[in-house]
Each structure stands twice: as C-alpha cells, then as structure tokens.
C-alpha cells in the first residue's frame, strides 16, 4: 500500500486561493454594508477556506465517501447546537434588552 501512487493536487494554487480569500475577508469588514450581509459574507468565506483546507490539504477529496461523512458530522452537530442554544439566548435577550425585544415581538396577552 505504501508504494501506491499518492495523489497531490496543485498546492500552490490552493495557497493562493486561501491568501486571496483572507484578503477579501479583511476587505469585507470595512465595506459599507449591512451588519447582517457582512456576517453572511464572512461565514461563507470562512466556510470556503475550511472546505479548501479539508478537501486538498487533508486530502478528503481523494478519500472514501464514508470518511467524508465522518468529517462532516461535527459541522452538522455544531450547526444544530446553535439551534439548541436559541431558546436560552432569546430568554436572556428578553431580560437584557427587554425594551428592544418588546417592540419587535408581537404582544402575547
């Protein structure tokens, strides 16, 4: 097995993609955009970088599909965790920024 040919992508190309994405990320925070848009842009850029690292540096692209499932599981769990924390988050928010929450939410009584 050790003598089998190892696949190596063009690592320098990946390096340039990562470098460019990092520069774009820093540029984005100074752009005159809505906070939400900046957040979405930053998240997608970070995810793009992470995918590049996992697929090419960690060779996930050349591995079996099942190993890909092992690798993607934490991302799914972490994403679900955000939803798990939402109810508690809203409860705290109502206390800390009660006035703001009261104006944006419909009255319940």
């Amino acid at each position: 097995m050790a003598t089998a040919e190892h696949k190596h992508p063009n690592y320098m190309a990946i390096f340039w993609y990562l470098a460019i994405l990092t520069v774009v990320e820093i540029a984005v925070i100074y752009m005159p955009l809505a906070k939400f848009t900046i957040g979405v842009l930053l998240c997608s850029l970070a995810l793009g970088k992470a995918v590049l690292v996992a697929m090419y540096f960690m060779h996930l692209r050349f591995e079996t599909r099942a190993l890909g499932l092992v690798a993607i599981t934490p991302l799914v769990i972490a994403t679900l965790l955000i939803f798990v924390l939402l109810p508690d988050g809203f409860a705290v928010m109502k206390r800390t920024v009660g006035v703001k929450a009261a104006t944006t939410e419909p009255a319940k009584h």
Partner: protein
Amino acid sequence: MSQVASMHGAVEPAESPLTPESWGKLGMWIFLAGDAVGFGTLLAGYGAMRATSADWPSPYAVLGINLTALMTFLLICSSVTMVKGLEWLGKGDKSKAIRFLFFTALGGAIFVSLQAYEWTHLIHRGLHINGNPWGASLFGVTGGVIYLLAIMRVVARRPSPAASYNPVEIAGLYWHFVDLVWIMVFTFMYLL
C-alpha cells in the same frame, strides 16, 4: 462481514475500509471529528454569549487585526510547507521532506510566540480569560509543534521514505486541522 472474517481467519485486517492506507489515518480523523465538536461547542457558546449581550465590544476595535491577519497567513503558509514536505517524501526525497517539516514547525513556533505576545499585551490591559476557543487553538498549535518535531525524528530514523509517508500524512491531518480551526477563530472572534 462474517464472510470477510472467515476469509482472513483470526488475522487482524491490515486495512480500514474507510481509509485504505491505514487504521492510523481513520483514528486521527475520528479524533479530529471529536475535537471539532469541542471547538464547535466553544464557538457556539461564544456566539450565544455575544448575541445575548447588550454591550459586546466590536472585536476589531479592541484586537489588532493586522497582527492576527499576519498570523492567519503564517498558519496557511505552514500548512503549505506541510503538504510540500509530504509531497517530497512521496517522491522519495527524505532530506527535503525533513526540511519542509522543519519550516512547518518553525511557522507554528512563530505563531505561538506571536500569540504569547498578544496575550501578554491583553493581560496587561486587564483581560483575564481562559477556556475560550482562542486559547484552545493556542494549545493546539503548541501540541502540533511538539508532534511535528517528533515526526521529523521518525522520518530521519526510518531508512525508507515510503515507510514514514503514512505517519507524516497523519501528522499533516492534525496540522491542517489546527489551521482550519484558526480560520474559524479568526473569522468568528476577530472579524465578525
């Protein structure tokens, strides 16, 4: 499964169906998956605390973006030297592989020093925190540097470059994962 077992008898299978090269690679991936859940939890906790806080400061107004951007770039570079080292090892050039592994460890060491500098700076300004992803990634890199130095010794000691290809690839997985976590930390804790 029983068919496979009877075919091979009592001998332990040499290959994992998930990672045909070695079980070690599968082991590292599973470790990293567990580690990733840990980091994911820390980041989600950070997000929840920040989202529900009424007066969370803007990170890039408090933390130095330039130095951190430089550190991010440094880690990306060290990931490239890591894969280059692996590539040279695949081509059978042991000394070039060791040289690139050394560059990778050096990049990690510089990263740790810059982090230490930034931390002392922040502590002097009255910040005392522990147990956040930011600090955890620092431990990740420190461990990684030690791991890389150990792997360099493995490569140097084994006569055949092919024999050390797998351990180096597994070490690379760890190193790139640290890079990946830092990409997330940089985005979520410094930029966002």
